[in-house]
């Protein structure tokens, strides 16, 4: 696809980079003139995907998270990729409240929140190779700017 604009970002899979990732994607999305609520939704979805990579894919050990963003007209495209351990059963992982780490008080709502806040969300994963989360959102659908 021939996008109007694109950007890529790669960073260490450490929790201090969660806010960096969501703020960077939100800054890229600003060119589409989103409402405040849309910015919050994008930040939340990105935070969930990046946190999953850090906690689950890399198990809090070393690794790199890659983000690609594109925009075409009023649609924002986001891909968040890791080269971690992968998800054995994606359908199970996407079940609301499912978590493989209940002892860490994880809520099991990451994918549910991504799905709720974005217009499209797909997960591609291969055990031992990694996971890619693909999200899309139409910007400018909110009536108010609050």
């Amino acid at each position, binding site marked *: 696809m021939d996008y109007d604009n694109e950007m890529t970002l790669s960073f260490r899979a450490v*929790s*201090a980079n*969660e*806010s960096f990732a*969501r703020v960077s994607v939100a800054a890229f999305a600003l060119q589409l003139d989103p409402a405040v*609520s849309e910015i*919050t*939704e994008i*930040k*939340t979805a990105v*935070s*969930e995907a990046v*946190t999953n990579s*850090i*906690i689950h894919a890399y198990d809090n050990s070393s690794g790199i998270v890659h983000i690609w963003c594109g925009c075409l007209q009023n649609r924002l495209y986001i891909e968040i990729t890791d080269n971690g351990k992968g998800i054995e059963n994606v359908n199970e992982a996407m079940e609301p409240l499912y978590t493989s780490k209940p002892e*860490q*008080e*994880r*809520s*099991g*709502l*990451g994918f*549910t*929140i991504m799905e*709720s806040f974005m217009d499209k969300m797909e997960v591609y994963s291969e055990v031992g190779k990694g996971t890619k989360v693909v999200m899309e959102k139409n910007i400018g659908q909110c009536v108010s700017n*609050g």
Partner: protein
Amino acid sequence: MSVSFRNVNDCLVVEIEGEIDHHFVDEVKKSIDTRLMSNDVRNVVFDLKKVDFMDSAGIGMIIGRYKQTVKRGGVTSVACLSDNLKRIMMISGLYRIIKIYNSVEEAAKVL
């Protein structure tokens, strides 16, 4: 992000300022649990008026404290939520077990 505590009636009021994500949540959980262990109160009220971002890590934190207060015969509630935080509470279904109040005073009066 910062956390401060105060006691109102039988409640430990936990006021959080900033963004609640996985990076900060462990530190917050530890400080609340330390307070709860050294405190006689049964209930926890989260004052979230100064929280401008929260993802599912915050939901995990609230559920964890809910379980602790239930063990002590108390309850956990939240006050002063932004529209975005309310939406996350709705999506998570957390509103079914944790009451949402407009102010800390209102929450403390009920508890």
